[in-house]
């Protein structure tokens, strides 16, 4: 038997406090019923003796100390799941908002999930081709990886994410592919952009959407990624889908967490974010992966906007420590209308080394990407120097390096939002850019590969005079 508790003893921000409760568990869900019959849901976030603190998902507006009654359900927050969730749209708390009625559940799962036992994991090795050279060539996405996009307000991260969704495929057998999309605190337009885009690609039937728009309650923002990942895990490990999870925007998520933490009166840590931000983010990101003996996979591409484009801000910083690399977008490139504006140097895919090369992509891929990184790093130095002494005064070698930089950005990085390059095309563009450099500059490629793939530009290289 469940007891209805009439009235509250405190309301503060999104939190309500009840006194004289008993038999309530930590993290348990409850229903809050207004005297008018309207309902809201909440979750127990702190217990102290007979006092329970509950966060109300839909917000506390209209709640007084006397006009509600609360009933605890005895269960943690859970999500009803079945194959039917594909093609559906839910709010952040997992309630359908597409007017198609409730999901008839095959299974109900706790949205907090549990950690995957490290020995049960399968190490990700098969690469996902995105058709974007800057990603495929330089920071390859691997199935089961978590690879965030670090962007800034106003940059074209949504286009990049959408292009990845549309073009992502795996060489050979494709299996069942599904997309879980979680929007946290994004504007209506952005959510609409993605919806249209999925529609254009004819993918809506493979997509599950969890939408928490900028005007929706912040508590649901904290739940949205958990619901999305629970759905993803179900699709992957129960039904065998290869699931790509797009979560945008993680910055709004973290801000919701901060707002919520400060309303609980917790001691703030860096920039006011709670001290458990790392553990909290990890509890989301670590839900990517593959499991030995199970067919599916969960790959995550979270999008976050770096406040003030600052990569050392706690959100990108802690994210970078958890995820397996990052794709960084660059303001200057974006402003010079270079699409995709991917800053190659700070971007990194940690799992790339085990998923490329002979037997995976092509034998020259590791050496080539290494060489492009190292040569492109020199481009930055040469540009800095040219900025001081003028391009004309540079040595011949530095001029060639600048030329390489131009070709690399223009031919290799730049492509159309609907251009889907094969890995061979990507690698050829890479060798094409390297062709302007003299062979002794290519110190990362061994002689055999150099002979096979490198074709120096016909203009004879000038020696000496440095």
């Amino acid at each position: 038997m469940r007891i209805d508790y009439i009235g509250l003893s405190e309301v503060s921000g999104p939190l309500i406090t009840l006194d004289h409760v008993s038999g309530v568990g930590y993290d348990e869900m409850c229903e809050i019923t207004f005297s008018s019959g309207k309902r809201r849901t909440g979750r127990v976030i702190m217990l102290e003796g007979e006092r329970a603190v509950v966060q109300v998902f839909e917000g506390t507006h209209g709640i007084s100390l006397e006009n509600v009654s609360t009933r605890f359900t005895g269960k943690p927050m859970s999500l009803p799941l079945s194959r039917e969730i594909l093609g559906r749209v839910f709010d952040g708390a997992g309630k359908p908002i597409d007017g198609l009625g409730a999901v008839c559940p095959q299974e109900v799962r706790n949205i907090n999930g549990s950690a995957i036992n490290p020995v049960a994991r399968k190490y990700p090795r098969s690469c996902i081709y995105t058709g974007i050279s800057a990603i495929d060539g330089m920071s390859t996405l691997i199935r089961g990886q978590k690879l965030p996009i670090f962007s800034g307000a106003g940059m074209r991260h949504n286009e990049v994410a959408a292009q990845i969704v549309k073009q992502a495929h795996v060489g050979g057998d494709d299996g069942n592919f599904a997309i879980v999309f979680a929007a946290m605190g994004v504007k209506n337009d952005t959510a609409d952009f993605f919806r249209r885009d999925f529609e254009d690609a004819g993918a809506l039937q493979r997509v599950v959407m969890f939408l928490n728009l900028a005007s929706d309650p912040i508590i649901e923002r904290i739940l949205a990624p958990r619901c999305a990942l629970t759905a993803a895990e179900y699709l992957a490990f129960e039904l065998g889908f290869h699931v790509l999870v797009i979560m945008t925007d993680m910055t709004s998520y973290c801000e919701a967490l901060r707002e919520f933490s400060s309303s609980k009166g917790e001691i703030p840590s860096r920039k006011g974010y709670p001290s458990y931000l790392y553990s909290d983010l990890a509890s989301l990101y670590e839900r990517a992966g593959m499991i030995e003996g199970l067919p599916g996979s969960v790959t995550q591409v979270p999008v976050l906007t770096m406040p003030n484009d600052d990569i050392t801000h706690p959100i990108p910083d802690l994210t970078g420590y958890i995820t397996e690399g990052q794709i960084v977008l660059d303001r200057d490139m974006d402003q010079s209308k270079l699409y995709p504006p991917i800053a190659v140097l700070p971007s990194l895919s940690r799992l790339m080394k085990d998923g490329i090369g002979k037997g995976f992509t092509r034998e020259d891929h590791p050496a080539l990407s290494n060489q492009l990184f190292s040569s492109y790093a020199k481009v930055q130095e040469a540009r800095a120097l040219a900025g001081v002494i003028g391009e004309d005064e540079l040595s011949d070698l530095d001029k060639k390096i600048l030329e390489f930089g131009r070709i690399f950005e223009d031919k290799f990085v730049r492509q159309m939002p609907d251009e889907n390059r094969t890995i061979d095309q990507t690698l050829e563009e890479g060798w094409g850019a390297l062709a302007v450099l003299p062979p002794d500059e290519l110190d990362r490629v061994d002689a055999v590969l150099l002979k096979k793939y490198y074709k120096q530009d016909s203009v004879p290289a000038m020696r000496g005079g440095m």
Partner: protein
Amino acid sequence: MDGYTIHSVNGPVVTARGGQTLSMLESVRVGHELLMGEVVGIRGEDAVIQVYEDTTGLCPGDPVSGTGGPLAVELGPGLLHNIFDGVLRPLNALEKASGPFMARGVNIGSLDTAKKWDVKILVREGDEIVPGTVYAECRETELITHRCVSRVTGTVVSVKPDGAYTATEPLMEILCPRDKTETLTLRQLWPIRTPRPVRKRMPISRPLITGQRVIDTLFPVAKGGCAAVPGPFGAGKTITQHQLAKWSDADIIVYLGCGERGNEMTQVLEEFSELLDPRSGKPLLDRTVLLANTSNMPVAAREASVYTGMTVAEYYRDMGYHVAIMADSTSRWAEAMREIAGRLEEMPAEEGFPAYLPSRLAEFYERAGYMVTLSGAEGSVTVIGAVSPQGGDFSEPVTQNTKRFVRAFWALDRQLAYARHFPSVNWITSYSEYVDDLEPWYRERLGHGFSGLRTRISRLLLEESKLMEIVKLIGADILPDDQKLIIEAARVVRLGYLQQNAYHETDTYVPLEKQKGMMEVYLYLYDAAKTLLDRSIPISQLRGTGIFDALIRIKYDVPNDNEEFVGEYSKKIDDAIRTVLEAHL
């Protein structure tokens, strides 16, 4: 029952009320599911407990019971070649018990109690044993003999013969002072927060050879020493740790993944099972204990995991082994402390970290050392701690406080990593205070030349970095030729020597002899090229001969066991210079 029940729950922190018996740091079982926890504070009749598992569903009124002792782990044969969580529960057994996802309240002992070990008993009836006596031994893996070291004093009253025993079967009865009898088995318990005793600490005198040029040559770490590897994300901390775990000449490696990525631990597990130890030819896992407490596992267990790792390391040290513990990353540990301190509403000090951060770090790093164990053997624990500074900023509290307690500091650099210069150890900001301590060892092993070469190489690099400041402003063209030579020679050293390819068969591990030879060749080039300067021949002409590139490729072209290459390459350098000179005649 001591009558304790849960009073409040806030994340991983639970308060129990209603008893008097719990003591500080006592290990407890919380709720009906018997979740593991530890007492971290006592206020009146309230005991504050940090719980090592997810606290969802705990209710006020649920029972809490003490175990009577501090958090202790089971030690014995079977730790090697195995993987555990932060409180030493075997992950393979957990997977069998609860499937691919971690469940709560599963209490499984560290050791496989069904497995029989071929035990050799080393004492006889009537023998006196004291703490430090080795009473039994068994082959734990093909590489390592497991020695059971007594912690008690007494007389052996009865003893089993040699044979096959499990970890928990009694091997002998001991009559201790005051007529107490003790039963000794292969297994023993040890509280993780208490350092294991030793006879005495020895001065630092031997290096931990890692086969990584920048470390062995420029910034060595000693056996029994401590090193920190700080670096922003993507700078290669984990790869550096992996390289050290694979190639360093310790007998035992304890690899601790503290709050890091799950996939990384899977990779370590996979890779270490395949890789062979370069000295013995046996799988690396045979000398490795893996501890994995990934970032999404409970935070309190993360806090405990570094102590667990250290206890395991000390346990093997006491058998007379040289142990290296790689902790990746100590920042996650410090953050776990911060998180729990926040939940306990403790007064924060710098950047929200608790005020006891430096003393906890000091306690941890001071458990390293080169020791004479109670049994009279020599053993050591070397600590290599990764630090993940927030925003890559080394002025943050964890890096700064770690710096006070370690003597080797390998600063990883974001810019170098962007240019894919690995290992991205910055040769200007890194340091090792062990250089002088280890000098006699290097001299005895490699002759007098080594330290001279090292000094010259580091001076060359330092001069280059000063010149690069100028080059950044005005370009390399206007530098006089002698400075151009410094830049060229330093470039060869950077690309050929400091950069090391962890994925290249030959380059991944380089013996000291080859390291020395390479330095000799590079400095020979620098000296020989000066003859060109005397005749005002531009260095760029020497570059045109391709000799620089040949030297950079020494690391790939010369096999690690080739001892003759110094002469060969000196001759090549002479030839190149002669060619340039002749072209000028």
